[in-house]
């Protein structure tokens, strides 16, 4: 690009802050996390190397059950988010009058600029026993007694779907925007029914968007703390809550590190598998 005798100075000026950032804040902390996860305190109070923190995870059913539960719910949330978002993205890009397109996509993105905490708080006001939905159900005579709709798995799942919707809708909007209308028109002229068009044309075309949206949603759900903590009940344990408890409540940083590392591994593995299965590059997905 810039041919000729080029000094090395700009390279060093740009490279130094990047290396400092990546090594001091990303690489070394994660190596430290790995090191801490293999340390335990023995009976004499000395720190020794051990895999005990990891064995503890498999020995205590509460830990690996929570882990499995978190992964399972993250899959369910990802699937539900996809099912809800796909028709919306399709409507905005293909069905709605073109002049509304910009307005509708803007409207869609607005809530996600607001802090996750505010959004979860809004749902808490709506769903709790003294909440707004109960107020109306009682007023209209549908219920006699207020029902606690918060603090259960359904509320938590809905909250997680709500929180991560944006990251599914945006990639879907961009892939569907690139879908040529004439493909659908041709299929329709040749006598295809709506389900056939959806399965044979729309979904295959939207696959890159579906894959990248799903990967991001899955990862964010797995690592979410706020929504399960505030909307799920006391028994709806989420794995990040276990990590928090080990760090802040039990002050067992070594055990917490092992849990943290396990979460990091599973999340990276699933992202890697997702990318391989759909033949995509990480650098494409994150954009």
């Amino acid at each position, binding site marked *: 690009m810039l041919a000729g005798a080029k000094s090395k100075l700009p390279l060093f000026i740009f490279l130094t802050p990047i290396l400092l950032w990546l090594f001091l804040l990303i690489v070394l902390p994660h190596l430290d996390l790995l090191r801490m996860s293999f340390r335990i305190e023995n009976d004499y109070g000395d720190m020794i190397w051990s895999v005990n923190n990891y064995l503890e995870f498999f020995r205590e059913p509460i830990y690996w059950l929570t882990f499995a539960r978190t992964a399972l719910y993250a899959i369910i949330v990802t699937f539900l988010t996809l099912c809800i978002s796909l028709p919306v993205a399709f409507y905005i890009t293909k069905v709605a009058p073109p002049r509304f397109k910009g307005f509708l996509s803007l409207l869609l993105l607005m809530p996600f600029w607001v802090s996750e*905490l505010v959004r979860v708080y809004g749902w808490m006001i709506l769903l709790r026993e003294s909440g707004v939905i109960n107020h109306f159900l009682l007023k209209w005579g549908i219920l006699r007694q207020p029902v606690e709709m918060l603090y259960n798995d359904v509320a938590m799942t809905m909250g997680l779907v709500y929180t991560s919707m944006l990251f599914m809708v945006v990639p879907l909007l961009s892939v569907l925007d690139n879908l040529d209308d004439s493909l659908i028109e041709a299929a329709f002229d040749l006598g295809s029914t709506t389900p056939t068009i959806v399965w044979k044309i729309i979904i295959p075309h939207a696959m890159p968007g579906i894959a990248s949206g799903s990967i991001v949603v899955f990862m964010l759900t797995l690592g979410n703390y706020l929504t399960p903590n505030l909307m799920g009940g006391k028994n709806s344990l989420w794995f990040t809550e276990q990590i928090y408890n080990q760090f802040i409540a039990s002050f067992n940083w070594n055990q917490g590190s092992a849990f943290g590392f396990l979460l990091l591994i599973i999340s990276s593995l699933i992202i890697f598998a997702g990318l391989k299965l759909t033949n995509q590059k990480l650098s494409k997905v994150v954009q």
Partner: protein
Amino acid sequence: MIRTLPQSRGYSISFKIYIILFFIFLFAPLLITCVLAFNDSIFPALPWKGYTLDWFFSEGPERIGIFHDQINLASIWVSFKTAFFVALLSTVVGTCGAFLFEQETFRFKQLLYFLMLAPLVIPGVILGISILLFSNTLGLFVEGRFGVDISLLRPGFWLVVLGQFSFITTLVTLIVSAQLKKFDYSLEEAAMNLGANRFQVIFHITLRFLKPALLGAMAVAFLMSFENFNTTLFLVGSDATLPINLYLQVRDGSTPVINAISFLLIIGTSSLALLNLVVQRDRSK
């Protein structure tokens, strides 16, 4: 099926209803939060007891509005300071990153690029604990070796700034790189032929071209930092940021003051987001 094809009535009506329900689902929690900020009741719940501005301006002692609530005001100020430093720092380093990955060639570039993307796929909680662990290890080491206690390495304001900076910089790098890709290099070459050196070119030409993207990236970084919870949770010291402070209040029961804060946040973030959008659109014309 699509707008150019004939649609059955049932299809088009049911699709419309679905979209309307979806938007209700999207906006209901935010609208109700805003509305209840003005309800003249001590609980953030219905029934509607009349309109009041107490939750904004009341001086107490029974009701303390947000503008007189010292704890919440303090946390808003902490969040502003944090977001300011994170936006500044991540924009500077992110711009270096964009130049590095777009314009320079060096060994292990691909590897470093993947490392740069990594913060986006690391859960925020993990980023928080690993930075907490490392700063603690470093602090212990420095204290043991040199007998100096560095307060910077203990949970607190600057550790929160560093924690948020560690992943927001990746976003800034991606935003600025996207703009830098569109840069017409003949402008640089022309300037160089006229005798400018590399830094003069960057300063007078490239950065000028990048200005809208830099402002946009800074706004995004500010917002991301202002509302970050997961990473901050583990790094926060005695001065809590707004999301942490709100979380503690929401967990232990709530008052309409939280609604008032939420209302201000919703108005504030959406106007910043809209402003950013309008600026970007104007520039791209």
